[in-house]
């Protein structure tokens, strides 16, 4: 074992290092200036600088494919894309946090520090090539988030949300870890390629401990992306957390975890079918989970009135859609199809992150005080008072509902496309059906904004960065919808560029 750290290894983790160092600066400033909170603007500039630096480093490394640190990390196209989505989501979340009433406090530097730390965890999850590293990454990301959720200025709900998230998260982590242990025991290692290589054989032999281990690992991931019935924490936590953090959780966590799932389902044998095809029961279980997630997420959102909870349930249902993509990637008969499906999942994550950030940005603008629960009715008459905001949100909602020509439509199109390509018609059918339900609640805010008058006028928070985020994402949904081609090509090339 000649495992000396090389420059290449450091290059691979350079974005994380950049993030870590830039995140430490404000905290250190605080420490060295007698515990006096630095100006929030300075803090956010440092944090954003860190993110930009990480983005730059990641982008400059694009095209490279190699493993690092004795194969515990892998840097490939998927990692580049995942990192970029996570970093951009983080950047937007930072912009939101800068303006937001619940995060604007004396501990803003710590918040930024934790957000960047959480992003480091996500990057580890994305780059991880080893289950134990994935576990580390997930814990790093989650522990930061637990604290972030609790650090809201809001007193009661945020603490409760944080605690629920913490207990359930740790509970799921423990299950996940037990799964890793069982996989370690049956496979003889935790390295993902090793697991993938042995999967076929172990499934064929009906190794029951392997079944249990694999199921536990998958369920651990399922918890993080809030798949039914592991979704129950999501609405509560999304509601309790301050909106920028919610936006961050809804997008970045999901992106990182889904990429980890994709890596778990990787093909060991480039010429053969997916190893998981040896046991169709996994396919059945996952399909049911996907269908139930979509249906329950959408159905529960229909009767909600709290806008943040609607978005929470919406994110649950989107997990269901993404799960369709994951299933198509994981149970593909050929590696090409699997890669195609992975491309689609990444594209969907990209579009989903855009839309979700935008939607939460609007929530952030409309939350007038700490702990204010924004309901759909609060949106009434918004179109007359602020046409730009209303128009942007409308675009985003239509995109979430999958109305062409927004990016949401093309994401759904390619997702259902990859499902049909592998003859998973029922999944596609259920996906379509639940999309129709989703239309109902996505349109309710539009109805409120454009079609009803309100006597009560809710104050609009000023916040340049948040508004910018909203408008930017709204424009992006249209622009990337009409110009999905370059995005898709880029994603596709990235995914094909894989070890």
């Amino acid at each position, binding site marked *: 074992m000649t495992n000396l750290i090389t420059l290449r290894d450091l290059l691979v983790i350079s974005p994380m290092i950049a993030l870590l160092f830039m995140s430490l600066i404000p905290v250190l400033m605080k420490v060295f200036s007698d515990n006096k909170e630095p100006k929030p603007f300075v803090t956010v500039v440092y944090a954003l600088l860190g993110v930009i630096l990480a983005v730059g480093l990641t982008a400059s490394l694009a095209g490279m494919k190699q493993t690092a640190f004795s194969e515990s990390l892998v840097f490939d196209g998927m990692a580049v894309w995942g990192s970029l989505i996570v970093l951009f989501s983080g950047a937007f979340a930072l912009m939101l946090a800068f303006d937001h009433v619940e995060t604007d406090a004396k501990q803003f530097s710590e918040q930024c520090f934790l957000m960047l730390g959480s992003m480091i965890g996500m990057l580890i999850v994305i780059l991880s090539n080893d289950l134990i590293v994935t576990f580390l990454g997930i814990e790093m990301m989650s522990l930061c988030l637990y604290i972030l959720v609790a650090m809201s200025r809001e007193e009661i709900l945020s603490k409760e949300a944080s605690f629920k998230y913490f207990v359930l998260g740790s509970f799921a982590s423990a299950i996940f870890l037990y799964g890793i242990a069982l996989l370690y025991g049956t496979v003889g290692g935790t390295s993902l390629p090793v697991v993938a290589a042995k999967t076929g054989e172990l499934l064929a032999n009906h190794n029951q401990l392997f079944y249990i281990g694999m199921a536990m690992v998958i369920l651990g991931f399922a918890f993080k992306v809030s798949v039914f019935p592991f979704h129950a924490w999501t609405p509560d936590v999304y509601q309790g957390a301050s909106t920028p953090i919610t936006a961050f959780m809804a997008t970045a966590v999901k992106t990182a975890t889904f990429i980890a799932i994709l890596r778990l389902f990787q093909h060991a044998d480039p010429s053969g079918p997916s190893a998981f095809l040896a046991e169709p029961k996994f396919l059945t279980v996952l399909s049911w989970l996907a269908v139930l997630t979509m249906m329950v997420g959408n159905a529960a959102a229909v009767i909600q009135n709290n806008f943040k909870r609607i978005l929470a349930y919406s994110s649950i249902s989107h997990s269901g859609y993404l799960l369709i993509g994951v299933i198509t990637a994981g149970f593909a008969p050929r590696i*090409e199809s699997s890669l195609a499906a992975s491309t689609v999942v990444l594209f969907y994550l990209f579009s989903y992150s855009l839309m979700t950030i935008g939607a939460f940005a609007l929530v952030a603008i409309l939350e007038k005080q700490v702990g204010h629960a924004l309901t759909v009715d609060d949106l009434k008459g918004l179109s007359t008072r602020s046409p730009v905001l209303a128009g942007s949100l409308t675009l985003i909602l239509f995109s979430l509902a999958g109305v062409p020509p927004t990016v949401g439509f093309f994401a759904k199109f390619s997702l259902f*496309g990859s499902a049909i390509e592998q003859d998973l*018609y029922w999944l596609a059918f259920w996906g379509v059906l639940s999309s129709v339900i989703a239309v109902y609640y996505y*349109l309710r805010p539009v109805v409120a904004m454009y*079609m009803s008058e309100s006597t009560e006028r809710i104050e609009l928070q000023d916040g340049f960065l948040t508004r910018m985020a909203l408008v930017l994402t709204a424009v992006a949904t249209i622009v990337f919808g009409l110009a999905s081609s370059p995005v*898709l090509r880029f994603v596709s090339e990235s995914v094909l560029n894989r070890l």
Partner: protein
Amino acid sequence: MLSLIVFLPLLAALIVAVLPKDSWVRPTAFVLAALQFLFSLALLAQYDPSTPALQLTEYRPWIEELGISYFLGIDGISLWLVLLTTFLLPVVIGGSWTAIDKRSKLFHASLFVLQTAMLGSFVAMDLVLFYVFFELSLVPMYFIVGIWGGARRIYATMKFFIYTMLGSLLMLLAIIYLMFTAQEVLPSHQMTANILELYKLDIPFIAGQFLNPQTLLFFAFSAAFAIKVPMFPVHTWLPDAHVEAPTPGSVVLAGVMLKMGSYGFLRFVIPLFPEAAEHYAWVFLFLGVVGILYGALVAMVQPDIKKLVAYSSVSHMGYVMMGLFALNTYGVTGSIYQMLNHGVSTGALFLLVGMIYERTHSREIDKYGGLAKVMPIYTILFFIVTLSSIAVPMTNGFIGEFLILLGSFQASKFFGIWAVVGVVLGAVYMLWMFKRVFFGEAGELVKDEHHPLRDLGKREIAVMAPLIVLIFWMGLLPNHFLKYSKVSIEHLVETKDAYQLAALDAEGRTVVFETPAKPILKPLDSVTTRVAGVEAK
């Protein structure tokens, strides 16, 4: 040319949206819409009616990764629908001059966006592009009904949106399936939604068995279009949407949007799935007949004029569907003609209902009566439009209905006879309504002496004039219109089992589709036949 026609309204929407003063909006919008119509008339000059080929095509790859191209073209089937769309917009803007009193910028911008979507779906020759326009058209209509509609507008607009979306999403799955099949089967091995390429597919069909590709695809497509048309029993969104929609919304909805459904049958369903269409034609003939009779009967007992007209739309569109699924020249020609007729006459009816509604703010038939004495010009115009609606000869309605009945009688005597019964019922409900509203003693709203009803003003007459002229023009000289569609229709009917279209660009050269394929969903080197027996024609 076609791109210009499709996207000029979008430009107009932008122009309208940035106008500094609200009072400028209407004249600007009207002028823009009228110019757009005049511009679109140039299509007639450029169109060559002697060939069934797609003309004036524009092709360029759009999202190659998903096999989607930007492909526009026009043939005899869509030509008049395009012109109908451009024609109705200035009329609608003129007709809503005083009816829309709030947020007129947004309103006119929505109308223009809607225009783009509708035009786009009539000229899009790529299935996904079509789908994009098809769905996009829901959005502005959703706003038009929802913002400027009546009391129950939100219920109506939600119902409208969700119903139509439900149908079209099933179609989306079918589209994707077709695209993959094309990639595997066609010699080019490209994932494509180009309709001309998809026409080359020969999808296996097993009669009497439901679970086979062609039947399933056929019904998936049909569901989308049947809801849009709408056919019985998925028609209930229409009366609600019509009643709640503001006048211009109703006109555009009835005049053009419903045609997107029937057009879809003609452009996609029948040529793509000819065997299934033939085998299941009876389903549509049956539903068409039920729609005709049911729509007429229910229209008869409506207490609300607008709802009556809405149900009459159900009935009229029943004729259109029957004609289409008669699958012969008469029926199809009649259907296309009836689409135009319905656009003109039902559009005119909605305008007229809107005009009276503006004066009395009521549409309850019982509250009227004796209107003919008070508003004679209005009465005359209404009567002419009524005649067109009940298909009295020498008006446009007759030509369409006659051809449809002729065609469906040829296809099936049984359904043909029942459809003819619908002709009688059509007269019953329209004339009964006419009698109750215009004849007899002055009703509660009519005799109100404090607010005497004005007869139509100059603007209103000017709005109606082109429609009235068209009613007679199309009734007396149908060949002026039909000669452009004749070759296309005959080509479709005669060769529908092996339907092929050539594509000609604006200079008349045959277009060859050469796209560098970069499909991502299905890698090229892994092509296997997905369904045994699928072949290229």
